[in-house]
Structure formats: structure tokens, C-alpha cells
């Protein structure tokens, strides 16, 4: 369907419109344009835009600037939290639902969504009240909705909300990882399509400034992947698509050692911009090491190591040994060269002995860190110790010159944690700030595919395209996300044999 037709369909009176939106085909433009029109139209109530990540919310906010309070933009998770907070008493949740959910990890927010969905289904009046506030709802990235989040949407729709859904079934990389889940998701998708008006965006806008041939090839790849076929890389490559054959010869896991290093280096360091994509966090760390940290790691929005640290600091407040142990684990998670064997054991000893031995050099530095923790065996002391560590690294102190912090933003946030009354408060506040401040992608950066979703750039490289991309729906999605990021050039690094069954290189 042409872009104009899609725009018309969005603005029609149809109660449910589902727009299938391949990457880079102007979905955000359509969505934000419709949002702006809705906001300026004379109508009761407001427009609600639901996205999945705070970054995506940021994009919509930017594009709908000036509409004031007529547009509300939130994540589905926060909507569920709001509803659950209002009714936290019958739902048997604590008053601070958001904090509770965050500390429960993924289970936390999922549990909130589930309770909220059940509650809305049971009490129609609440969905009706919400429908009066939000007569029109746009749901972005619907493929990332969990079953419960989808149920919340459908409850609103059943109460009269005009629903506009943007989705790409081939970018479902956050849910539906097992084949069983994939099946239920597929069924849900079919049901949704059947219920409303359905249209597909089909012009590769993203590639207009780069290589349109590449963009069209990506759409063909998409069709193949949706059809259960492999992606064909034709002998006459579309402009911008390159293939490098290189094998990873590292013996240990999570390390990268290529036999054909030069062309890869050239792509990574030669141009002015490159986004290196890979499947796992470990491989991302390996790649940054491979480039001697000249290509940094894109941290995205998750803070796994920091969340784990906050968890311990919150629960083991006052226990100096636990705090020290958590600190060591944290640094190990965000960098290299600092572990139990290198520094941690000594740290624990100093804590146990009370820092009474006179020392010099590296042990003295470790003792300083221990003193900070002993003085305040809580998040304040931990932050102070981390600040000391940061200084030691920067000053290249003896024994700290091999310590490298890869996840600098996360590390920095841990250092700032001490300024807050509780570690949970600090985590929450920093997440809020992160949500509003949308960092631009650095010129040279390596990222997991998951953290790169939604981003765009001019040049990308996918390494390695190996058997890790198996013949599962989940892998197809991951592959598609990776292929569709860059508008100018895309470089695939494939092994000479045993590569991904999803790629057919001619």
C-alpha cells in the first residue's frame, strides 16, 4: 500500500488499524504525523502513544513537540504500572509499584502487566474510564508486547478506544524466543490482522540518502525470511552490500581472533562511521578488545550489572563483606582486569582484618577502597570505593594499569549512586534521566543486535554471521534487525564454512 493510502487508513474511522512496518519504511514518520494530526484535531480526550522503550518514547515526544497535554506518551509498562498503582490495594501490591517491579527484574514488570490485564478484563468500568481519557491509542512496536500487555490493549479497544497498531512481526526479538512462544505470538498476530484493517508500508525511506538498491535488497531479504527461505546474497552485490570471509580462530570463548583481519580492520577503522553488530554481550566485549578499545561498547538502556549491584546494596545494607563482594562482581561485569583473583581477594581480606596492616602500592590502594567500605558499609561507601577505583585507573596507578572499564556509563552511574538516599532511588532516578536524554550513537561503536534495535546509521557490519543464526524464527528476527540498520553500506563477515543457514551467498 502506498504511503498516502496508509496515511488515509490511519485517519479513517476504522476502530482498529494494523500497520505492518518493516524497518526504515517510514513508520515513525507515519505514526508521529498521525499523532500530530490527532492532537490538533478538535476532540475530547487525549491521544495516547504507547511504545516499549523510553528511547522510542523520546522519538515520539520530539516529533510531536508543541501539542502540549493533548498527547501523552508512555511505555506500555508504565501504563500498566499507573493502573496497578491506582488499584494497588485490591491487587495486593505495595504502594510504590514501580520500585517493586524494578527490583523484581523482568518478572516484576511482567507480573504487574498480568495483574493489570486481569483486572481490566474483570472490571470493564476502568477500561471505559480510560477510553474516555484516551479515545485514540497508538501502539508502536506491538511485536514486543507480551501477552499481558496485548491483553491490556485489547481491553482498552473493547471499551471503545480507536486503536492504531504499528508492528513488525520480523523484529520480534524481545519476546517469543522459544518456538512455543513464537507459535502463540504468530497466532496472536493473525488474529489481530483479521480483526481490523491491515496495511503494509513498503518504501525503504531510510535508504533514500544512501543506497536504495541496498534498501530494496533488505526488503527482499525480509520477504525471504518471512517465507521460511534463506536470504539470497546475489553474485552481483547490490550497491553497499559487502561480504568478507574470515574465521574466528580464538580457542577460548568470547574472544575474537580472525585469520583474515585486514579487510575487517579496514571497515572498522577506515571510514568515519561504523556500527558493528553482533549477537551476544560477550562477543561485543570480545570485539571491543579485538580493536583495543578503539571501538567502544554501546551500553543501550539496560543496566544488568548495576541492577545486580543495587539489589545487593539494598538488601545487605550494613554488611561490609557483602558490599565488597558485590562491588567486585560489578566491576567484573562492566570491565576487564579487576576480578576476585586480581584484586578482589585482597579487598575481602582487608575488610575482614579491618585495614590494620601497613602497606604500600597496589595493596595500599585496595586498602583505601576497603576503608571506604568499612566506614560506610552501604551504597555510599560502595560509591566512594568505586570513585577511588576510577581515580586509580585514570592515574594508571601500579596494579591498576590493566584494568579497563568498557561500560563507562554504567560505571559512572554506580559512582553517582552514593548521592541518593537509597540505592533504589538512585537507580530509578538515573533510569528516568537516561530515558529523557537520548544519546547519539558514537561514530565507532559495537553493539548487540538487541541494543541496536530502533537505531539507524550509515554503515554497519555484522560479525560473525555464523551458525548462531540458526533456522529459528527468533534468529530470523535478529538477522533482519541487523541487516536493516544501515542506509549506506552493510558488511557481512562470514566463516568460510558452517555459516548461518539463513544466508545463501552466491
Amino acid at each position: 500500500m502506498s504511503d498516502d493510502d496508509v496515511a488515509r487508513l490511519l485517519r479513517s474511522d476504522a476502530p482498529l488499524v494494523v500497520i505492518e512496518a518493516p524497518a526504515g519504511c517510514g513508520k515513525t514518520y507515519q505514526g508521529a504525523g498521525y499523532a500530530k494530526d490527532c492532537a490538533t484535531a478538535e476532540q475530547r480526550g487525549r491521544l495516547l502513544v504507547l511504545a516499549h522503550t523510553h528511547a522510542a518514547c523520546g522519538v515520539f515526544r520530539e516529533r510531536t513537540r508543541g501539542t502540549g497535554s493533548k498527547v501523552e506518551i508512555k511505555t506500555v509498562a508504565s501504563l500498566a504500572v499507573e493502573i496497578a498503582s491506582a488499584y494497588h490495594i485490591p491487587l495486593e501490591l505495595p504502594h510504590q509499584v514501580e520500585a517493586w517491579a524494578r527490583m523484581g527484574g523482568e518478572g516484576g514488570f511482567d507480573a504487574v502487566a498480568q495483574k493489570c490485564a486481569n483486572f481490566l478484563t474483570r472490571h470493564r468500568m476502568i477500561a471505559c474510564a480510560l477510553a474516555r481519557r484516551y479515545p485514540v491509542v497508538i501502539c508502536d512496536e506491538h511485536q514486543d508486547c507480551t501477552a499481558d500487555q496485548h491483553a491490556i490493549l485489547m481491553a482498552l479497544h473493547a471499551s471503545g478506544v480507536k486503536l492504531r497498531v504499528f508492528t513488525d512481526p520480523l523484529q520480534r526479538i524481545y519476546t517469543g524466543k522459544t518456538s512455543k512462544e513464537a507459535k502463540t505470538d504468530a497466532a496472536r498476530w493473525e488474529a489481530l490482522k483479521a480483526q481490523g484493517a491491515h496495511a503494509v508500508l513498503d518504501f525503504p525511506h531510510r535508504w533514500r540518502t544512501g543506497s536504495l538498491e541496498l534498501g530494496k535488497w533488505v526488503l527482499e531479504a525480509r520477504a525471504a525470511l518471512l517465507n521460511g527461505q534463506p536470504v539470497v546474497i546475489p553474485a552481483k552485490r547490490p550497491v553497499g552490500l559487502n561480504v568478507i570471509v574470515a574465521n574466528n580462530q580464538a580457542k577460548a570463548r568470547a574472544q575474537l581472533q580472525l585469520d583474515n583481519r585486514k579487510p575487517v580492520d579496514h571497515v572498522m577503522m577506515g571510514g568515519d562511521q561504523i556500527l558493528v553488530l553482533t549477537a551476544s554481550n560477550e562477543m561485543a566485549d570480545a570485539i571491543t578488545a579485538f580493536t583495543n578499545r578503539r571501538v567502544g561498547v554501546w551500553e543501550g538502556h539496560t543496566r544488568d550489572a548495576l541492577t545486580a549491584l543495587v539489589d545487593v546494596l539494598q538488601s545487605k545494607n550494613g554488611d561490609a563483606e557483602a558490599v565488597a563482594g558485590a562491588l567486585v562482581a560489578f566491576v567484573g561485569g562492566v570491565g576487564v582486569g579487576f576480578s576476585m583473583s586480581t584484586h578482589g581477594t585482597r579487598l575481602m581480606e582487608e575488610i575482614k582484618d579491618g585495614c590494620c596492616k601497613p602497606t604500600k602500592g597496589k595493596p595500599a590502594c585496595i586498602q583505601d577502597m576497603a576503608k571506604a567500605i568499612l566506614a560506610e558499609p552501604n551504597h555510599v561507601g560502595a560509591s566512594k570505593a568505586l570513585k577511588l577505583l576510577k581515580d586509580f585507573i585514570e592515574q594508571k596507578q601500579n596494579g591498576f594499569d590493566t584494568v579497563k572499564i568498557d561500560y563507562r556509563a554504567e560505571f559512572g552511574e554506580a559512582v553517582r549512586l552514593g548521592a541518593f538516599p537509597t540505592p533504589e532511588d538512585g537507580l530509578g532516578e538515573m533510569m528516568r534521566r537516561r530515558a529523557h536524554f537520548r544519546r547519539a550513537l558514537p561514530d565507532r561503536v559495537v553493539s548487540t543486535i538487541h541494543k541496536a534495535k530502533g537505531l539507524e546509521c550509515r554503515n554497519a557490519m555484522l560479525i560473525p554471521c555464523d551458525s548462531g543464526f540458526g533456522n529459528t524464527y527468533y534468529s530470523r528476527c535478529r538477522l533482519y534487525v541487523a541487516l536493516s540498520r544501515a542506509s549506506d553500506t552493510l558488511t557481512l563477515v562470514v566463516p568460510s564454512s558452517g555459516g548461518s543457514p539463513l544466508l545463501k551467498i552466491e
Partner: protein
Amino acid sequence: MSAAAMVHRLRIERFRGLKEFDWRPKAGMNVILGGGDMGKTTILDALALLFSPTNGTTVSETDYWQRDTDQEFVIEATVSLPESAGIENQRRMAYPWHWDDKQAVLPTGADGEEVEVGAPVYVIRVRGTTDLEPSWEVVQPDGVIDHLSVGVRRQIGLVRLSSDERNDRDLRLVYGSALDRLLADQGFRARIGKEMAKVPLDKELGQESRKALTSLSDKMGKNRLPTGLTLGLTSGQGPSIGSLIGLLAQHQGKDIPLSSWGAGTRRMAALEVASTTAGNASPTTIDEIERGLEPYRLRKLIGILESTKGQVFLTTHSAVAIACVGQQGHLWYLDGKGNIGHLPAAKIEVQQRRDPETFLAKLAVVGEGKTEVGLLNFLLGKAFNGNPLDEGVRICDGQGSSAVLDLLETFAEANLECAGLVDDEGEKLGRWKALKATMGDRLLQWPKVATEGFIITAIPDEKLEELVENDEEGLTGYRMRSLAERLGIEAKDWSSIKAALTAKQKSLKALIIEAATGATDGASDKDKKAWKKHAQNWFKRDGGGEELAAKMVSLGAWPKVKDTILPLINAILAAVDRSSITGLPT
């Protein structure tokens, strides 16, 4: 979602004379009765404050219970609102509660089937803070308090007709008035303001005045003050331009402000404007509905109000108004302690139609029938040494035992002060017993007999002929005939009657009692009706009770009956703060 705004529950704490007030009004028309200074107007004023369409309402020290401004007052309502009120559209979302017929409750349970529910309700309130400022709030299900915006209150659009104002607010373009909402033209005032600013007022000035202005301008210039003075419409403190604009109507060919018409017409017009807006669904409060209206217009108005969709709250002191509240209306009684009780139509309907003043008394004394009413008239006249009505004690005819039972039960439940004098018909013993337990000495039910029976029994035998005799009203003959008929004899003279009595071994007293009560035992079928009617010639007639009472005293029956009757009389006296009596003053 409901079509009209409705108050399901109103709680008032420490507002003016109401310390603790908790009421669940009904849909439709709610008529509040009660003695003076009990708080009827306060209830309406509380609603008006809660739904005030402006933020400029001030609260004064006298609005606080016992003028203690260190304690806040709260006026809280559980309401269902129409979509047009837009309560879900405030800056922060307002979440609904369930109404379980008694209070707002949280919807329960996270799992399970869909729950059928009536209208969702919201809990809103206005607090009088210790700084003498009103604060309008929405109470959320999680206990969080959010602001209730003036916009929502304006949209609810309460129509208020108070008894002391000119009642023309809704006929003028004041912000949020019914006329304003009817015209729904946001920019109108601004455009009018512009237009008026353009009017060249100084062209109307005379020569001299214009010269004066010019020289003033010069003088100001010399003192470095603003110059170029002219005249025009200035805005400022006080009435807005909207309040000066109102409806005009034709009167004898000229356009006259509608607010110049009489009070009754103004009120009815204001209600018309309000009912045309908002599809007839705004809540309405009217203090003293009868004000300025003749009975025929009052009836018409009540009829109109009963058919509106919105909830209506009225106070009245008018018997006419009470009488014409129909099936869709509800009567309530507010007592001196802030309790408000429902008077269900089914139980009071007959009395409501026939003698609506019953509900306006300070103390209603209900007699079962004409005899009892007459007896009470006599006794209370003596006890009060004047007209008991002057103290709000009203003697009412309850139209029969069953009706009186319903009426007294309703009054007792609604805490309406009442007293009763009834016969013992041997029925509904449980209910009478319960009522007696509640009312104590204020209920007198003759033991096992009717009024006539009790009193006549106390009259000495030798005085019986005097009892029967009533030549002044020409009833002696009829009475003698009724006695003769019951004996089955033709002759109506005393000796024949006495002879027949001896033959039947019946006492004269018993016969008289039977005749006076219209007893039908022993009558043939064709005589039953006639025998029943005998009572109307004795004491079951207007004036009959008084006659019986007077004779009770003059014929010497009083000493025997006084111990039974005095508790009732004294209870009535005590209820109006008069001292009790030990005997009847002569």
C-alpha cells in the same frame, strides 16, 4: 456511564451546624423537610460549595463548626458523572470506584470473571482548610488526593436557586452560569469586550467636559504623568463584563431584563435555561421551592422537576409542595441532630395527600380517627392553656389504625417527633409492641378497647343518660334510635330501652359503647351497614371527640382515666419543653 450527574452519598463534617452528616439521597427529586434551623439550607449550600463553578468562592469563619477554624470541614460526595463532565480528562487521570449501595469501595480481586457493575463512581470533596480556603479534591482508589478542577465542576453545572439571592445568576452571562453553558461560546466575552472598547464614549461628552479633559491631560503632561486622556470602558475589579450581560425579554413591546420579573418567574426561567443545556441532566438545588410561586405554579414547577433527568434537591415549608411530590419524588426529614430519615411514599402516601401539614409540624400528634382527634384537641387545649399549634404541636387525623401504624413507624425511623393515640384492634401486635418500645409514653394504645369504650366505661352509670343527650346538635333522637335498633324495639324512649335491656340482660353502658363504636355483632346482614353508621351520630364525627372529652370531665370519668391518659399528655409537653401537669386545669 450515567446520563446525569448523581450524588449517591453525601458526607458533611463540621460544616456550619452539621457536625456529622451522612446521607444517601435517591435518584430524582429529594425533598428535605425539617423544623427551622435544623440545617436544610446548609445541606444545599454544602452541595453548592462542592460543585462551585468558580475558584473564587470564599469561605468564612461561620462556615466552620462552632466557628472553630482550627479544625477543617469536609464535604464529600460519592458521585457518578456523565461523560461530559470530563473528570477523566484532568491533568491527572481520575480512577473510578465501585458503589456497593452503601459506600464507595475498591473493585475487588485481580482474577475472575467480568463483574457486572452499576455506574462507576468517583469520590470528590471540598475541604475548608485552617487557612479559610476551600480545596477541591478527587480521592483516588489508592488514597492519593488530586485536585478537582474548576472545569469539571463547571461542566457538571449544578443549578442553584437559593432563597436569598436575586436568583438571576443563570439568566446572566456570568462565568459558568446556565446561560453561559447554553450559549457555549468561549470567545464571546472577549469579542464583546473588544466591541465595547471601540465605542467612542467621549464623543457623547459636552463641550465643557471635553475642555476639562484636555486641560487635565496637559496638567498631567507637565507632571510627567500619562497624557492623551480620553474615556472608555475600563475593566477592573468587581463585576466582569459577562455579569452585565443577560437575557432580555419582551414586555409590552420593549426589551426588559428577565431579572426584572418577579421572583417566581425568575426562578422558573432560570430552571428553563438550565434544563435546556446539558440535556436536562444537571443536578439542581432549590431552597424553599415555594418562594414567589402561587400554588398552581408551584405544582407545575414540581411536575417539571420530577421529569428532569438530573437529581434535584429541594427544601420546602409548603404543604402544597409536599402534597404534590409524586411517585418519582422522595421525602426526607432532617432532625435536630443531623440525622436525615427517609419517608417512603408507600407508607405515607395517604397522609401526604390528605394532610401534608402533618410533615411540617414540630411534633405531630396522630389520632386514629375523628374521635381521637377531638379528644386530643380538648385535652391538649387544656394542657397548653392555648392553641398547641402555636408551639408546633399539630393534631392530625391518621385515617385508620393500619395507616397510623405505617405513619408512626416511618416517623419513628426518620426521627420525626411524633405521638399517637389509637385503639387496640387486636392486630399487628408485634409491630405495635415494637413501636411502643421506641415511642414510650408518646404512644397511647387503649388496652383492649377503643377510645369510646375506655372512656364510656369510666362514666358512672347514673350519668349515662346525660352522656347520650345532645340536644344542642340535635343528635339525641338519632342516638336513641340507634340504641332501639340494636335492641330490636320500635320505641325510642328511655323506659322502653331500659326494659328491653333488662330483658336481654345487657347493660346500658355496653349498649352505648356498641352503638358509639358502630359494632356490628349480632346484626343481620341487611342491618350491618346501618349499624356501622350509628357511630357517626355519637362521637365519630367532627366535634364528637371534644363532646366525649368534655363529658368525660363533667360527668366524673376523669379521675378514673387520668392515669392512663396523663403520661401521653406529659410526654407531649416534655417534647416541646413544657413542664408536666398532674391534672387538667379548668
